[in-house]
């Protein structure tokens, strides 16, 4: 479904990604794990068009999207829940959700998906008129996720959804990701919380200083000595 080949990304003189290649297949949960600064966010930004690659190829559902603009990529069915949630703090919860459906024109479909998001996150329904900036971290994560679902994506990319949340909420967030995947959405999950990520993923890639150093089934990596030492402490 998503295929990334030989990606090289620079920030000025900083070589942030070195020949990164990976693949996400329909229906999977794939996770990219790595320490802070490894380049996880850069990968997601490059896939969704916010950052341009110097070389390499990104294809999504057999279409080359390497140089496609960010606002067009979304229309291919690729949604991105950014690191730090980045909800629109000056807008209400409902306005945020409608922003997620900005590119869509099918009024009925949008209303239907809004209802689905409210079913999945009842707390958002209770707070639908509240300004997003006044929500708690966990609620903002739900809102950012719901907002991304409003574009009816076939692939959902999530950047550190567990960041800054209490252990109970982290468990809840991963349960949500599992259920989104179960309802037919493919998921690419970026995490520093390797144990949690590996526990729900089918496959995983390990990223170190801009290079993919290991890949395999989540089970295999969970029992890999190097991975255990470096990420599962």
């Amino acid at each position, binding site marked *: 479904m998503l295929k990334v080949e030989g990606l090289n990304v620079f920030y000025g003189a900083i070589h942030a990604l070195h020949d990164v290649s990976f693949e996400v297949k329909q229906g999977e949960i794939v996770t990219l794990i790595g320490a802070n600064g490894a380049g996880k966010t850069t990968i997601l930004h490059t896939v*969704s*068009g*916010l950052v341009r690659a110097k070389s390499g190829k990104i294809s999504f559902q057999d279409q080359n999207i390497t140089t496609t*603009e*960010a*606002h*067009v990529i*979304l*229309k291919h069915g690729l*949604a*991105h829940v*950014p690191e730090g949630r*980045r*909800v*629109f*703090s*000056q*807008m209400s919860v409902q*306005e945020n959700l*409608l*922003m*997620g459906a*900005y*590119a869509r024109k099918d009024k009925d479909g949008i209303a239907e998906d809004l209802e689905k998001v409210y079913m999945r996150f009842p707390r958002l329904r209770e707070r639908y008129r509240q300004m997003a900036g006044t929500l708690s971290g966990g609620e903002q994560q739900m809102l950012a996720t719901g*907002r991304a679902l409003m*574009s009816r994506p076939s692939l959902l990319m999530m950047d550190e959804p567990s960041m800054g949340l209490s252990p109970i909420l982290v468990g809840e967030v991963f349960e949500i990701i599992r259920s989104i995947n179960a309802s037919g959405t493919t998921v690419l999950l970026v995490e520093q919380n390797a144990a949690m990520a590996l526990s729900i993923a089918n496959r995983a890639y390990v990223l170190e200083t801009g290079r993919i150093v290991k890949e395999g089934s989540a089970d295999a990596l969970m029992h890999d000595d190097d991975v255990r030492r470096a990420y599962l402490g």
Partner: protein
Amino acid sequence: MKPATFLITLINGLQLGSVYALIALGYTMVYGIVKLINFAHGDILMVGSYVVLFMLTTVFAAQTLLAKVIAVAAAIVFCVMLGIVIDRVAYKPLRSAPRISALITAIGVSLALQIIAQLIFGSEQIKFPQVILNETLFKIDKKPVKSLPIITCCVSVVLMIALNLFVNKTKPGRAMRAVSEDMGAARLMGINVNNTISLTFAIGCTLAAVGSVFYAQKVGYVKPLMGSLPGIKAFIAAVFGGIGSIPGAVLGGFVIGMLETFVNYFASQYVDAVVYGLLIVVLLVRPAGMLGKAVREKV
């Protein structure tokens, strides 16, 4: 101050305030979305006045109502196109450059517009034709209340209400708010950021073009440097209200316009001192402006 004089001064203050508010909205909306003080915005006011003048003296033989309507429409269309072209040609290439580069470019664009106007129309001031009816409506204590200030205020208020509805209730308005809060996140929503920025310039220039007619009519002439002074006052109004805030620009425009008019009545030599003094006080007490949000820099 006699009640009649007070009322007339109040009306004049509202008139000037409306014009400042219309221009201040352009500063604040552009700042809100691209974080740029568009110093050329005051000169858009000048360009709008010249377009109206040109249409009514060169294009049309008689200044009929229809000719006036077309002249104002032409000024709006021309200013909108000019604003969008300036953004695409001068500011867009500097979007990710340090802010000071775009700021200096804006000053350059401002000078360029003034010089081009001088080359085409000369640097002398030219009498501005009457576009808006300015009859005496009624008299208070033998002092006439004219229609120009009243029309200026009414049209401006209608435009501000329309703008408020547009920004808060429509889909493009929501896109503008999204881009101004977080450009990257807005792109992830499928918003075409460049189009949204152009739309913002277009709205700012529409308001400036309308303001230009009211302003030129009030002062009675046009000249290439005429945009500087109201431009600076409107910029102060935007900063006073909180740059980036739409209600702030309206509030700032009216406060500065009123203040200027009343101080002018009592002690005209102190007008600028009072206006700048007020700005300094506000910035000391509330650095983000009256209605501005505390600045939250994004990385």
